[in-house]
């Protein structure tokens, strides 16, 4: 609930900032949002501009332009800790956010001041679980695995979705971060994104009816359990059962005495 509240708050703020910025270039900026944008700009210049350029126009061979990516992309990359990156040669992966919430809000406000889509609004509860399962199988499982545990693609790692929030899911679908494809409204409607988020929430809280879930990625952990647990236990049992005659008839210690 608090997450939703924060997101809504941030959204209202950014919405406000973006609209103001678009229409207020001649009128002069109002105190609060413009101060937020200004704060974001100075933060951007110190933390992001080295790669994305001093005015977010991008630097060829280093990082893309952020003009027009909007609050949506800024929120996604900052909230999942994917930005800032230590080097433009590494894949951005999820970590804890590098900035506190107030600074993230300021950066989002600054990036949104160039225009672009707003932070996604996703309502998993309005989605259909079965539709989400079907769409996830069709569009997402190839990379993320059907249980959202992540995997690989040649050239990159596919992150697990265990920590993805509905908002971030909605944003990633529209952005296509790193090498992930993106999906238009025509391909995945807002309602379908709600369903996907609902399905992903369900796999984040699996029921594991069969017992210990061992990662829900199928045969690899199953094989490890079969060998390291079952086969090891049975070998131990066999060792205990089969040991007797060694002690009686073939005992090295007794025979040592004979020597």
């Amino acid at each position, binding site marked *: 609930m608090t997450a939703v509240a924060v997101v809504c708050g941030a959204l209202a703020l950014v919405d406000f900032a973006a609209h103001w910025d678009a229409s207020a270039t001649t009128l002069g900026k109002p105190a609060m949002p413009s101060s937020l944008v200004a704060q974001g700009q100075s933060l951007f210049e110190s933390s992001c501009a080295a790669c994305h350029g001093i005015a977010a126009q991008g630097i060829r061979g280093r990082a893309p332009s952020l003009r027009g990516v909007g609050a949506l992309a800024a929120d996604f990359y900052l909230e999942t800790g994917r930005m800032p990156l230590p080097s433009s040669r590494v894949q951005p992966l999820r970590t804890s956010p590098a900035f506190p919430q107030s600074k993230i809000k300021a950066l989002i406000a600054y990036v949104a001041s160039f225009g672009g889509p707003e932070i996604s609004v996703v309502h998993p509860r309005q989605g259909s679980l079965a539709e989400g399962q079907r769409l996830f199988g069709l569009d997402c499982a190839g990379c993320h695995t059907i249980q959202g545990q992540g995997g690989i693609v*040649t050239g990159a790692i596919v992150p697990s979705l265990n920590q993805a929030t509905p908002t971030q899911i909605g944003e990633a679908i529209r952005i296509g971060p790193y090498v992930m494809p*993106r999906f238009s409204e025509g391909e995945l409607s807002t309602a379908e994104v709600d369903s996907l988020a609902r399905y992903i929430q369900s796999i984040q809280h699996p029921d594991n009816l069969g017992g210990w879930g061992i990662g829900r990625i199928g045969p690899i952990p199953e094989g490890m359990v079969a060998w390291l647990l079952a086969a090891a236990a049975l070998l131990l049992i066999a060792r205990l059962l089969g040991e007797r005659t060694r002690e009686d008839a073939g005992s090295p210690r007794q025979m040592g005495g004979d020597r």
Partner: protein
Amino acid sequence: MSRIWKAIVMFVMWRTGGLRRHPTATARDPSERHTGAPAWAERLVALLLLLIPIAAVVFVALFTLHPNTQLLGLALGVTLALLAAALVLAGRWLVPQETKVEQRPQLADPEMTQQVREQAAAGMEGVTRRRLLTGAAGAAGAGLTAAVVIPVVALGPGLEEQLRRTPWRTGRALVDEQGNPILATDVIERSFLTAFPQHADEEDLGSPVVVVRVDPMTLKLPPERAGWAPEGILAYSKICTHAACAISLFRDPLSPSTESKGPALVCPCHYSTFDVLDGGSVEFGPAGRPLPQLPLKIDAAGVLRAAGPMSGPVGPSWWGDPS
């Protein structure tokens, strides 16, 4: 170096029990027999056996009243573990402990072997043209084998039709999983969607295609495929040419300036990677053939349609497959 080597050997010997002395071969008869069970063992085995019906009743009660998988497994597992403990303890402590020596049977009796060989040879007594008969029998066997195998291989010619057919025809519209036509405007750059021929069986291997859009300037299609990708929209068979898995990964760098590799379709089974820009050629992985491409056109209503048949056979190759 030699010290390390000795350490390795020592470790292996320790693990394999090689450090214990090995029994010398003695002529001593190893037979022995001990009887007389300790009283505690009898009581323990009896106790274990008495616990079994209790555990079994718990299992039955759970089965009828509350069949929870974990509780059922625990109850039945404990029952069996009690049984195992009782049997092993009984085997090792209650009954006489015995080591016996048994003579190993001699398997072959040379005299009998000789007799049987002679008897077998006698079956051919009086037959003079043995070589001819052997040859004739061989011919009979070969004929029978051929009679069975050739019809199977003869399935070949008709087979080609069966294994290569796809429902794609010129003008056939591309639809999504629900049967809705796909508009060119739905396919944005860096998007990835699965399409099927309108009114065709979605489960047919020849049906599913992957539709992606790239910047037309980056395309490297061969000249004869020049018009196959209107507005940079490409369609490839979704079935891997290696082993028929669905190509369900699309890797498309957001920022081509920083991520060196270009857009590619990847199979999740063995990670065959197909370059979408130059007609589905194999970039990495075991696939031996490019992905078949479906030529596209955009009709007046903006709907994507096939502009011709697939560029090659869909799915894995087979021996004799014309390719």
